[in-house]
Every structure is written in structure tokens, then in C-alpha cells.
């Protein structure tokens, strides 16, 4: 028992140190700064925030729109996850890589595409701008990949023989799904839901651009206070409120997750994916791929079209001219931006995988209140406002080594957001490895190292690759705190896009769209490459 505890501690040490120094410490520093400005705690802003009717409304909206967005993403995403996990069809890997693309696109860019699509002149024919539907649809657009990939990678490990056995025993198709597959999938669904929930709970750009004045989340309010009004006390009080809400929800989630984990026999993708043979199966595949094309593809198509159109004619000028400066330093050479983006993303991914996989092992193999607390801590950065984290870095990371203006600050901020993804994709897979399989191997004479290598490692590797794809995408898209920290002057693709969009003009707009398309292609290619890895290694099973 003691050795076991020591082992856990050894696994948890690095993640704890990482989160302690790069999350808890900055967070506490900025909260103290806001709530105890002169060294004495001042509860007034907290009381103001808690008693304000407006802010109660904001808190309530934050909660229900996140719940609704999560539910909608699940309803639309689960059939997609099923299709991509269970069927083999031409272009499947491409589709699976492509669904990740929306995930990285800056909200300013997506916002203008959504406004074009949801306006009265759009294909829907109704004006959905500034309605809750615009927000919900954009949230599905951004988070679809989370459900498809997290649940999908789990689903393809479930042996279809289990469901077939239930069918043989007389269960209907629906009953077999509900009573056999669904319970097995539950940990992955819970995992994906928790991430989607946190992402939409802290939604910022989508709400600002598509929601207009009548909608505001806590995240938006924190940003308004801190950046618009320079009121760090109210911002800190709001951040504390947001943190408490997220913490409570995560704690409840961790309890649920632990109770529900089921171990089962993992199968190989070779046996679980089949070619859609029946008309029903074909319809299902075609329907879901069609849905993805409309939901995810149409905003992307708007961007591509805009990047190819100049004063009413088709042209590749915006791509060709990307290298030219046109007399302005607004234009970051795209190769430079791509290089910076890749460098940050690679660093962030490595950090996130190392820290995240260790953390996932703790979460997967240990239980009890401590392990639950650890799990909650890991997820918290995703539910913390970007302004809070960014400003926290500034306040806390000046000493002993001044990290605030170093190269590392950006990948570290990205890794903080990427770690929950790694943990959430890896832990359910790791947990699913049957204990009996391990015991059998041990009984046959394999040492603990060999057991881990032969039984766990193949699954761990798969999990790490799914996590890596997300970590890479998170970093490429520059989510989270990076817009609120001082950065080394190394413009990434999203930064270059923002710079272009800061001035009017056909060329700046066209080039911004062209750079967005380059970002899309880069993301698709990176995820596709990681997928190839995965496919190559499936033979290990």
C-alpha cells in the first residue's frame, strides 16, 4: 500500500508542480491583488458582485447557455462519433482530421462568416443574428470535434461483439445500444461533455461578436471590468465567482466519473470498423458527413471564397501577394507566422503531453477524494477566465526567473489549456484496460514494467496521440490567456490575421482570409499527420 502511494506521488509530482507554479500561484496572486489591494482583504467588491441583480443574470446565462451548448453539441456530435468510429469509408481519415479545423479559427474570422450565413440574405433565410441560436450554433461549430474525437476514439475500442451478443439474446438494436454500448461509452461522453461545458462556460469571442449587447457571460464581464474599465477588484471578485462555480461542477463530475467507470475488453479498430453495407448504414454515414459539411463546412467555405475573391472576380492574388509588404509592416510574412505558430505549438504539445499523460495515469489508476481533487485541479485552467490567467502570469512570474517576457510564456499558457484535453482523452482509455488482463500478464511472469509496456503502453500511446492532436490545435488557434499577456514579438498566424483585420481595405481583408485558409490547411495537415501515426500503430493491437 505504501509503495502504491509513493508511486502515485511520483507520478503526480510533476503535474502538481507544473499546475502549482503556472496556475495556482498566478491565480492566487492576481486574486489577492484584486481583493486585497493594500494587503488588507476588502470584501466589498465580492459583496457587490454577489448582490448585483445584473450579475446574477449574467451568472445564470453563463450556466444555462453552457448547458444548452453542451447538450446540443452532444446530440449533433454523437452520431458523427459513431459513424467515424464504426464505419470505414473513403476519406474517413480526412474527415476526421478536417472536423478539428473549426477548433483553431479565431472568433473574429468565424464571426464575420457566421454573420454572413445567419443574416437575412444567408442560406437559412431567417435572421438569426444576435439571437441565442447564433451563439449555440457557433458553440457546436467550435466543439463538434471534441465530442467526435474524444468519444469516437473510445467507441472504436469497444468490441462490437458485445452489442452483437446482446442482439443474439433478443435485445433490439436500440436496447442493445442503451444497455450495453452506452454504459461503456459513458466515461468518454462525460469527458467530452466536461470539456465542451468548460469551453462554452468561459466563452468570450463568440458571445461578444455574435451575441451583441443582450448576452454576456461571466468571462465577458470579467474582461469588460479588467480591460475596459481597468477595475481589477470587480474583475477578481467575478473571477472568484466563476472559479467557485467551475470548481463545484467539476467536483460533482469527478465523483460521477469515478463511480461510472467500466472496464471492458478492448478490440482493435480493424475489427470494429466496417464498410457500410446496408442502405440504412449508407444513409447514416452520408447523412452525418453531409451534416458536417453543412455545419462545419459552410462557414469555412465562406472564408475560402472570400480569400479568392477580389472586386467581384476570382483571383489567387491574396495568396501570391502574402510575401509582399505593400509598404506596410501590417503584413507579417506568412512563412514567418507559420514558423512561429509551429514552434509554439510543438513546444506546447510536448509540455502538455508529458505533464498530461502523467496526470492521466494518476486520474485513471487511483480513486478517492485526493485523486478527485487532483482531477478537478487539472481541469480548472479550462474553466478560468483567460484574462485572469494572463494577468496572473504577469503578477506572479516575474521572480525568481523573469518568465514574463520570455519565449516560454506562450507555450506554457497554451499547455495549461491543452493539458485538460490530454487528460480527458487519455484517462478514460487508460481506465478501460482491464485489471484482469494486467493480472494475467503478471501471473504469467511479466514484471510490472513489462505489464505496463505490453498491456498499457499501446493504449496509452493511442491516447497520447489523440491528446497531442488537440494540444497542437489548441496552441495553433491561440486560445485562452495569450491575448492578455505580453508576448515576444513573434507573430503567430492568428496574430498576423488580427493585424491585417485592424485596417480597412480589400487587400488587408483578402489577405486575412487567405491567412485563415492557410491556418485551416495547416491544422488539417497537422492533425492528419498525427492520425497517420495512429493508423500505423494500430497493428500493435
Amino acid at each position: 500500500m505504501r509503495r502504491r502511494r509513493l508511486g502515485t506521488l511520483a507520478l503526480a509530482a510533476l503535474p502538481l508542480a507544473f499546475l502549482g507554479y503556472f496556475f495556482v500561484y498566478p491565480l492566487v496572486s492576481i486574486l489577492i491583488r484584486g481583493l486585497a489591494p493594500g494587503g488588507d482583504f476588502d470584501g466589498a467588491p465580492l459583496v457587490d458582485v454577489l448582490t448585483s441583480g445584473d450579475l446574477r443574470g449574467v451568472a445564470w446565462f453563463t450556466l444555462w447557455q453552457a448547458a444548452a451548448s453542451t447538450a446540443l453539441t452532444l446530440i449533433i456530435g454523437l452520431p458523427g462519433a459513431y459513424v467515424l468510429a464504426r464505419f470505414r469509408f473513403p476519406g474517413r481519415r480526412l474527415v476526421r482530421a478536417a472536423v478539428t479545423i473549426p477548433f483553431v479559427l479565431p472568433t473574429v474570422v468565424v464571426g464575420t462568416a457566421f454573420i454572413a450565413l445567419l443574416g437575412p440574405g444567408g442560406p437559412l433565410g431567417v435572421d438569426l443574428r444576435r439571437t441565442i441560436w447564433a451563439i449555440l450554433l457557433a458553440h457546436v461549430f467550435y466543439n463538434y470535434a471534441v465530442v467526435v474525437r474524444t468519444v469516437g476514439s473510445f467507441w472504436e475500442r469497444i468490441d462490437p461483439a458485445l452489442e452483437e451478443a446482446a442482439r443474439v439474446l433478443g435485445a433490439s438494436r436500440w436496447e442493445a445500444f442503451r444497455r450495453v454500448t452506452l454504459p461503456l461509452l459513458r466515461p468518454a461522453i462525460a469527458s467530452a461533455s466536461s470539456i465542451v461545458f468548460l469551453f462554452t462556460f468561459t466563452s468570450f469571442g463568440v458571445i461578444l461578436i455574435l451575441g451583441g449587447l443582450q448576452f454576456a457571460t461571466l468571462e465577458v464581464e470579467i474582461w469588460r471590468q479588467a480591460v475596459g474599465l481597468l477595475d481589477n477588484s470587480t474583475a477578481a471578485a467575478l473571477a472568484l465567482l466563476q472559479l467557485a462555480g467551475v470548481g463545484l461542477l467539476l467536483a460533482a463530475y469527478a465523483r460521477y466519473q469515478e463511480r461510472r467507470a467500466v472496464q471492458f475488453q478492448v478490440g482493435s479498430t480493424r475489427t470494429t470498423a466496417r464498410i457500410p453495407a446496408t442502405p440504412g448504414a449508407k444513409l447514416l454515414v452520408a447523412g452525418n458527413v453531409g451534416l458536417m459539411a453543412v455545419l462545419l463546412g459552410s462557414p469555412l467555405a465562406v472564408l475560402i471564397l472570400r480569400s479568392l475573391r477580389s472586386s467581384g472576380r476570382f483571383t489567387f492574388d491574396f495568396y501570391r501577394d502574402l510575401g509582399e509588404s505593400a509598404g506596410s509592416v501590417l503584413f507579417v510574412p506568412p512563412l514567418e507566422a507559420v514558423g512561429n505558430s509551429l514552434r509554439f505549438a510543438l513546444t506546447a504539445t510536448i509540455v502538455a503531453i508529458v505533464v498530461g499523460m502523467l496526470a492521466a495515469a494518476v486520474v485513471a489508476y487511483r480513486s478517492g477524494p485526493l485523486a478527485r481533487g487532483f482531477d478537478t485541479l487539472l481541469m480548472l485552467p479550462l474553466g478560468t477566465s483567460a484574462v485572469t490567467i494572463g494577468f496572473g502570469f504577469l503578477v506572479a512570474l516575474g521572480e525568481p526567473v523573469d518568465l514574463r517576457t520570455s519565449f516560454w510564456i506562450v507555450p506554457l499558457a497554451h499547455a495549461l489549456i491543452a493539458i485538460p484535453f490530454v487528460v480527458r482523452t487519455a484517462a478514460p482509455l487508460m481506465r478501460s484496460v482491464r485489471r484482469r488482463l494486467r493480472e494475467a500478464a503478471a501471473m504469467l511472469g511479466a514484471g510490472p514494467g513489462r505489464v505496463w509496456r505490453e498491456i498499457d503502453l499501446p493504449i496509452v500511446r493511442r491516447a497520447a496521440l489523440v491528446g497531442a492532436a488537440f494540444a497542437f490545435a489548441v496552441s495553433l488557434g491561440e486560445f485562452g490567456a495569450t491575448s492578455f499577456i505580453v508576448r515576444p514579438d513573434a507573430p503567430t498566424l492568428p496574430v498576423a490575421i488580427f493585424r491585417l483585420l485592424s485596417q480597412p481595405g480589400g487587400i488587408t481583408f483578402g489577405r486575412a482570409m487567405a491567412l485563415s485558409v492557410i491556418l485551416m490547411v495547416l491544422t488539417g495537415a497537422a492533425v492528419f499527420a498525427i492520425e497517420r501515426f495512429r493508423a500505423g500503430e494500430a497493428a500493435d493491437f
Partner: protein
Amino acid sequence: MRPLLARILLLIAGLAVLAAACGESRPDEIVLMTHDSFAVPEETLLAFEEDSGVAVRVLPSGDAGSMVNQAILTKDNPVADVLFGIDNTFLSRALAEDLFIPYESAGLDAVDPELILDPQHRVTPIDFGDVCLNYDKEAFGPDLPPPQTLADLTDARYRGMLVVEDPASSSPGLAFLLATIAAFPDDAAYTWTDYWADLRDNDVRVEAGWEAAYYGSFSGGSAEGDRPLVVSYASSPPAEVIFADPRPDEAPTGVITDGCFRQIEFAGILAGTDAEEAAGEFIDFMLSTTFQNEVPLNMFVFPANRQATLPPEFVEHTQVPESPRTVDPELIAENRNEWIQTWTEIMR
């Protein structure tokens, strides 16, 4: 082991000498904290390095509000030596926080005294620009001339045509709100709150930021929206010419010169710097024509130095409002929150 240890010790000793050398003489580098819209050619900054022997490292820090708050949060242990890009709407707050060391640059002689808002010279004006209403020339003609004044915008003929930015989240949005406050002050019979209530009833649209308002909602120039009037900059029409291919003879958008708000951008030496002298030299440099000549076409604002040369394409398509509105920075700092709050209540 021995030689390795010796080598490490030597390295440490070398570094210590190097560090000591840096401490007493001029710094190799100064750090410039600025907002994300800062832009000058690399050669310009290299020119400073050549003259002074001091390199400039640029730290983009988000938008103006984000940058100012970051400077406030780090004032005990600043990340930079010079800050550029604080405007008159944030100025008083920054001065109250004692962010800057006074420095009176000799270059101020060439600057319009109206731009020098701090008599103690804790900040130095570098450039200015006007936030103005832009209109889509195609949408207006002899039947319906573009509006001439702020008051015209409440006219039913211009119903559903205007898009503005939220002053809580956008700097031009705040500037336009301030222009309306200057035009319809609180002690007048018809106040700015009345004006905004009328604008609301005339179906004004509010977007979160300039990008969404201009590219998403405005119909003029390169934009693809459905509204012909937008709050933007006096320098947006020249940008529509310069960043168009082929370049049109005439800008597709125009500026309404009533109701413009003048934004002045300042630079200051951050208190706590250990490179005060070099930082002062950099302020001088920012006022020199080498830097000031680059300002128009890179940042689309006017140089503060009157001796700077303005590029012809910039002058030709830019209208400079004769009497832009201003509000005392002191007054802005005092009332900013309340004004934004009141505005939000009217518009929500």
C-alpha cells in the same frame, strides 16, 4: 570530471563579468511595451539601434486597455522601459497610478501644443487620429445626401443605417460615445442620454468591436455588410485606397466631419526602468522625423511632429475635421464607468 568543472566555473565567472559590465554601462537593449496595433518597419527601429547602440525589443501586449492594465499590474517590477500607445481616454488613470517618469523631450518644440496634455511631461504625444463616422458613397446621392451632423443621425431618413461599437469593449466605440457627450453635454436641454435614446429608436446597431462593425456590418469599400454608416477613423478612406488592388482614384467611403473625437497616443518612460537615459533617447527618436514619417502609412494616424512629411496618398484621401470633439482626460477618468454603465442601460 575535473576539466568539466573547471570549464563550468570559468563560464560562470565569465557570465558574472559580463553581467557586471552590463550593469554599469549602457544597456544593450531597451524593451518597448505597446499595443497590438503598433507597426513601424524593422529598419526604423534598426536606425535607432545604429545611432544609439541600443536595440529595441517590442512587446505587444493586447489592445490598449489590456496594455495599460498590464502596466499597472507590473508597475513594481516593470516588464519594459518605455510604453507606447496609451491614449487620452486612459491617460488620467495611468498618471494617477504613477506609471511614468517625467521626461521633456527637445522634440516637443515641433509638436502642436494642443497635443501636450500633461504639463509635467510624464507622457509625450507621438501621434493623433480622429474617430469619425464613415459613410458608403454608393448608398448616398442627390436623393439622399449623407448626414452632415450628429443630430442628422436621429432623422428617420437615416433609420437603420448606422452601426457603432460598444464603448465597453471597443476604443473607437468609447471615442464616439465621448464625442456625443461633448456635443450634447449633461447640462444641456437635450443631453447625450436623450441623443442615444433617439439613436436607439432610429435602429442603431451595436457591434462588440471595430472588426465586426466595419467588416461585418458596414457596406462601404471592402466591407460586405448592410449598413452604410459606421463609426471608424478619419484615416479609413485612405486605407481603402491604399489597400485596394487596383487602386481607385477616389476613396469608396467618406468621412462625416461633425462628431469626430480626437485620440492622441502617448509614449512614456516606465518608472522602475534601469535604462532611463536610453529610454529618453528613444522618446526623442519617436518624435524625430525618421520615426514620424513612418507613422501615417503604418499606423494610419497623423504624426505629432509637424515637420514630418505626409505621404501624398494619405493626405489626398484623408479629411481632417476642423474642430474635433475632446473631453478632458480628468473628466473621462472620473466618469468613464458611469457613462458606459448609463449607455449600456439605455441600449440594452
